[in-house]
């Protein structure tokens, strides 16, 4: 067999050569194909057809209820949303949790015509939903059903808004859920950091930050829920939106039939909502040992959406952390590998200041580096590295080019109109959005960065194993401990 050795070696070499040839041969036909394709700088995009923003039909009933209708015949479905001018911020301090409970039990507690269980059965056997909630500054009741069930589900929906039963046993179920929320509120570190930054910035007792306790929940009675509904749920405080597969005339007739005889309510004097206007610079530490990451949030009061600087700030937010190519993302994630998630923006709310906030979470060892980088990036925007003309152009491009997605579904267009109507904003805000972004200049963005982003006034909240970083945090200001323990009583 010895004589065969040499040829074997040769044939091995031949095989290798053959393999190389095969590889090259494979690559050959591909090469001309590569040459044919256009790279992004060569692609000529056909013009996008003009973007049509659907306009809902707006009708005001005699009782003051505003109705907006938008037909959409693609699928045999109907959705309705009632936006109600109420909110957790109007709760008395000794009954925090009342609005959220009312929002839940408005739906789960049944109506005067249909008891709780019967209501559940009615909806679920039709694959329909009605859900209700009350948040910080508004309430929602929403329904969704198949087209064929629309009239009967709308009648039940009207009953939920107008004639809730607030069944006592369902109040107990909702209270159990609310108590569980309290008991679990320190389990998730992100939950802690967002709650605490809000409390530090707005003030612990501000309705925009305060939290229910087992005591405030226990103090809430069924009468409180009934009274809350009587105070706020009136047609002149409701904006009703309908979108889906219906005929507007028929739907309007049905709405008049179900809501037309709902009498206006007495004028409501909503309590003034307090929040702390003073900045709270410093470092606030909440100790949490069972984590491998530190959560870091820093911020101060933001603006209202009717601030004329809103659009320049929208551009600033975009280049600061609005995308994967933004400054924060690039510095914290891409270049330094410090975090998976990071964001920062000047916050805006409809009728009160939003929260300006910068956040990330990073391994415990890099806590100090992350705090420093977040602060440096915020400071740089108003100092050594102001937004450049190139950045502003790119940010505006990204916002304008993606505008079509703000109006590509009828549901979202209608939802936006409801909110604008509710807070008294011009309804053409969406239509004018592009020209307002377009008008923003580099100087505008640089100016609003200086005016609205004040890192030296940041409250810095840090949640994690405190002993690992507490001392080093003193470099960023006076360090205070936050007590996040859950009080068992009032």
């Amino acid at each position, binding site marked *: 067999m010895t004589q065969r050795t040499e040829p074997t070696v040769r044939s091995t070499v031949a095989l290798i050569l053959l393999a190389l040839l095969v590889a090259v041969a494979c690559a050959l036909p591909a090469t001309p194909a590569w040459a044919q394709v256009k*790279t992004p700088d060569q*692609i000529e995009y056909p013009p996008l057809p003009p973007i049509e923003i659907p306009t809902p039909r707006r009708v005001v009933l005699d009782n003051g209820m505003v109705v907006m209708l938008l037909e959409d015949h693609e699928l045999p479905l109907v959705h309705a949303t009632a936006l109600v001018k109420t909110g957790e911020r109007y709760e008395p301090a000794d009954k925090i949790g009342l609005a959220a409970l009312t929002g839940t039990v408005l739906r789960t507690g049944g109506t005067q015509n249909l008891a709780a269980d019967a209501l559940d059965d009615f909806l679920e056997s039709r694959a329909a939903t009605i859900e209700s909630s009350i948040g910080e500054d508004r309430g929602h009741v929403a329904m969704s059903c198949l087209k064929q069930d629309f009239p009967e589900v709308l009648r039940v929906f009207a009953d939920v808004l107008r004639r809730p039963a607030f069944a006592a046993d369902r109040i107990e179920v909702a209270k159990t859920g609310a108590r569980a929320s309290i008991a679990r509120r320190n389990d998730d570190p992100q939950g802690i950091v967002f709650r605490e930054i809000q409390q530090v910035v707005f003030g612990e007792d501000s309705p925009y930050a305060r939290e229910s306790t087992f005591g405030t929940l226990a103090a809430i009675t069924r009468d409180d829920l009934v009274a809350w509904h009587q105070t706020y749920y009136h047609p002149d405080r409701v904006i009703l939106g309908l979108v889906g597969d219906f005929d507007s005339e028929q739907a309007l007739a049905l709405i008049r039939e179900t809501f037309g005889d709902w009498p206006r309510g007495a004028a409501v004097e909503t309590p003034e909502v307090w929040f702390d206007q003073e900045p709270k610079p410093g470092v606030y530490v909440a100790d949490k040992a069972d984590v491998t990451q530190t959560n870091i949030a820093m911020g101060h009061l933001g603006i209202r959406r009717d601030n004329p600087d809103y659009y320049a700030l929208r551009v600033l937010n975009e280049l600061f952390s609005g995308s994967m*190519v933004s400054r924060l993302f690039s510095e914290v994630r891409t270049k330094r590998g410090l975090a998976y998630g990071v964001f920062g923006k000047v916050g805006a709310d409809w009728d009160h200041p939003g929260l300006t906030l910068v956040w990330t979470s990073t391994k415990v060892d890099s806590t100090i580096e992350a705090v420093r980088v977040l602060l440096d990036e915020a400071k740089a925007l108003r100092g050594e590295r102001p937004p450049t003309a190139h950045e502003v152009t*790119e940010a505006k491009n990204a916002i304008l080019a993606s505008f079509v*997605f703000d109006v590509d579904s009828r549901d979202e267009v209608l939802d936006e109109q409801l909110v604008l109507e509710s807070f008294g904003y011009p309804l053409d805000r969406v239509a004018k959005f592009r020209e307002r972004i377009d008008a923003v200049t580099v100087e505008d963005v640089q100016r609003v960065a200086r005016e609205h982003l004040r890192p030296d006034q940041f409250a810095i909240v840090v949640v994690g194993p405190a002993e690992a970083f507490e001392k080093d945090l003193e470099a960023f200001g006076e360090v205070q401990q936050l007590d996040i323990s859950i009080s068992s009583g009032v």
Partner: protein
Amino acid sequence: MIRSHRALAASLASALCLAVAVTLCLAATVAAPLAAQDLASFEQKTTIHTLDNGWTFIIVERPVAPVFSFATIVNVGSAQEVPGITGIAHMFEHMAFKGTPSIGTSDYPAEKEALDKLEAAYQAYQKERLAPHPDSETLEALHKTFEERQQEADGYVVHSEFDRLLEQQGAVGVNAFTGADITAYLYSLPANKLELFAYLESERFLHPVFREFYKERAVVQEERRLRLESNPIGRLIEQFQTSAYMAHPYGIPTVGYMSDLQSITITDAKKFFDTYYTPSNLTTAIVGDVQAETVIPILEKYFSRIPRRPDPSPLRTVEPTQTAERTVLIEDPSQPFYIEGYHKPAVTDPDQAVYDAIDDLLTNGRTSRLYRRLVRDEQLAVQVQSFSGYPGDKYPNLWAILAVPAPGVTNDQVATVIHEELEQLRTEDVTDAELEKFKTRARADLIRGLDSNQGMAIQLADYQRLFGDWRELFRTIQHIDMVTKEDIRRVATETLLASNRTVVQIVNTPAGATDAPAAAPTAETSR
């Protein structure tokens, strides 16, 4: 985001999102079929096209607004991993945003040379680091060289150019996620930007460049800390997945073990890409204001550049039949949480519709059996939810149920009621009304799933991947219509048994009473 922390429901929802929500959408929510005429009308606007290299495209013309969305589903996930490279499917998903020889570089030939040197330096460092007795001075020197090489290679990087090209043209929802069976890539663009999509999506799978690999690996480690290690439900779910499987790779946490995330290399990732990203393993659905006749020539031109490679070898291991109940108790400073799961067949099994029926009866909505008993009447829990298709759908997987006990209630009290209700399913027929409600809701869910380009693209590509035919999305309704009371008793009797059960639970122990818990993975890990 900042307000959602107030509600328990929201925080649970987001926690579950990590673990099961996407699975539910893709697999279990398959409880969503339509009637024959719906399929017929849908077929009229749907075109399927397979390139010579094996890549399958589904195009749905939905000209509701001048936009389109796509989803590419790659038939690979953590189930294709082995110890040492866990987390690599997800790691590659991150690398798919790092560019190509023509995207993301200032000088590719020079960068390539620098990247080769970087990898050689890392391999040398790693060899010493993992040696039985590493020499600390050598190790330090090797690490220093590695860092120098990394800095050198970074000098050629144009950061995030792939993302920038998309964002400048109005892309939204640029994202990706990885599960046990799939890796998915998705976004939406204005309708006139189809050619950009074709260029970028063919380019990234034709010749991805593994730049910034070791920095991105640090990002993925942070993702593990965020989703699993620092979240009690994440810790619990990692235990659930790893305890339920002894042999099958469904027991591998998708995000990977930390030691592997500290060790996987560019070489590993390249090998994984070459093996599994062959075009025949990819399916893309495009939905929106597009026309098949215009789209197909563009797809041919751009995507045919990628050569066909051999199909990857099929997975061999089958999970052995479970013979004894497994229980894991995590002592943790957080509140109690309960999950139990049972092994069941793959989602392609005809019995999947029966599991969907069981989910619906037991936990879907306020009329479901367990909601009424546990939440409404006995107030032992504040939430209860069942689901199937965890951690994946292609191979036999788990039917599972989780419950959030009410304050002061133990996991055992909740488990007792769950087991009584499972026993009820074995011994008594469900009612006609319950079965009818399930079928009605399944039909409505299918319709509701058709209202977004992105949602539809994911569903169609995923059905094509799993069943070899996107039409199965609509046919599921036929399986659901055929579910009988006997089926439910049979399945409950055969599989929902203690000996087939894995139980994991958090037992509240005041802070300081235990050591800090270790980490945990999830079934879906998004970009």
